[in-house]
């Protein structure tokens, strides 16, 4: 994978808030709010864990972040722009700046692994001649260099997870959002995946990993933790409103 645009970790004072949530609430239909009064900032180039019990609203929060859902109330600013009132036609451009690793991978089953990984580049209109190089590089990066022609169904859960990660990062996103990326893999593979995220973060990408596996938190010592409890964000220290960022 090529190096990040910002060329690695940045020191805290230099970091800008790449994501800002202000009093955000999300309600599906006429039910109770799934997310309530979320106010936090994510600093550019930082590493975050989002934890919470099942049903706490982690996936819903991530959906707001990767623009799959609009909030019922509140303000969300992404890359300095209001993402709530943003016209629908501008969403694709913003989505290309966010890499997403879905909990259920969402690989396209009838495409090869290489074609799945290449999809963000092709969606972005990258010339075909410039696609195969980065795809090969990503396949090697996730340890699947010899499986490019295989179909997703022939891969194990961990391998599919790595393909999903490769697809999420090949477009050099400014933010990487991963929903339970280690939920289907053994501890050894979980460590390897976290190393992938960490190395990406060191190249400048802001990383947010949603997990309920608290053991993962110790693997990235200077990551910050966000904890959701019944749709509300626990931020006793106020660090999420004023993130110190990751020290270089």
């Amino acid at each position: 994978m090529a190096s990040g645009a910002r060329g690695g970790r940045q020191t805290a004072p230099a970091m800008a808030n790449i994501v800002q949530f202000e009093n955000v609430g999300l309600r599906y239909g006429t039910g109770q709010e799934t997310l309530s009064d979320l106010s936090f900032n994510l600093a550019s180039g930082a590493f975050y864990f989002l934890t919470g019990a099942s049903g706490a609203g982690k996936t819903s929060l991530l959906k707001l972040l990767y623009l799959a859902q609009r909030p019922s109330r509140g303000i969300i600013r992404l890359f300095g722009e209001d993402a709530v009132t943003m016209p629908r036609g501008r969403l694709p451009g913003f989505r290309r700046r966010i890499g997403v690793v879905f909990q259920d991978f969402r690989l396209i089953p009838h495409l090869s692994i290489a074609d799945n990984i290449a999809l963000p580049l092709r969606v972005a209109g990258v010339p075909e001649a410039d696609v195969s190089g980065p795809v090969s590089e990503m396949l090697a990066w996730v340890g699947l260099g010899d499986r490019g022609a295989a179909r997703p169904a022939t891969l194990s859960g961990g391998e599919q997870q790595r393909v999903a990660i490769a697809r999420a990062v090949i477009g050099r996103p400014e933010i990487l959002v991963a929903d339970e990326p280690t939920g289907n893999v053994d501890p050894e593979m979980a460590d390897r995946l976290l190393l992938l995220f960490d190395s990406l973060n060191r190249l400048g990408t802001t990383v947010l990993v949603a997990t309920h596996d608290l053991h993962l938190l110790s693997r990235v010592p200077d990551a910050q933790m966000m904890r959701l409890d019944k749709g509300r964000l626990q931020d006793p220290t106020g660090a999420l409103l004023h993130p110190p960022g990751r020290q270089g």
Partner: protein
Amino acid sequence: MAHSTARLLDDARDGRAMTWVIAIMLFLTVLAAAMGLATRNAASTLERSLAGRLTVQLTSGAPDARAALAELLRPWLGADSADPALPLPVMIDVDLADGAPATLARVRAAVAGIAPEARIDAHASWMASVAGMLSLATWLGAGLVALMASATAMVVVLAARAGLDAHRATIEVMHMLGATDVQVARLFQRRIARDALVGGAIGGAGALALVAVIGMRGAGLGSELLGAAGLGAGAWVTLALLPLCFVLLAMAAARVAVTRALRNIL
């Protein structure tokens, strides 16, 4: 992302029903268009041949011609053809270079001035009802083509919506990766264009072959009217272009249907 994403929509999820629906629609459309074009051709030929043609009938006042007429009728009437009590009107066939109503009126006035009892029959008026029927058939053909085109567009819209449902998971992934509605719609346009092209080629070729066979058989009958209903080069080109027009129509319908449906998805 045109060529590289050609396989993004799984072929296995779509049948080939669309191809055959388009083939049948095109087959019927080309036949209807051929009927319309042929009857229009026949109507205009008939109109050209009858315009300015009339028969002047002199019931009296032509004694010089009576002997010649009696001679002409002798094979049928025998000696009775010379019976002075037998009315033998003189028929004069007139072919006017200019068949305009004003010219016809001048001819009527001139004949009335010379022979007030003479009757004038304009051929065009005899065939007015036939020409009316041919005109009706022409409009019927045009109407059928319009109906077929509308039905095809609706079928494409339904197919595109069904396709959206069948490929919803793929489309959601594409959206999350930053694909625009136009990019997604293009996938369906390409798919439907391919189906329409194959279906149009099958249906169009079948109908054109059938029209050619009917045309040859009609020409073999030696009927003046059927001969006039033949298709000219322009009509054949029009018929051959119909499948292409349907492909474009199908692509446009697919694009509109998909982009409208996608607006309901964030």
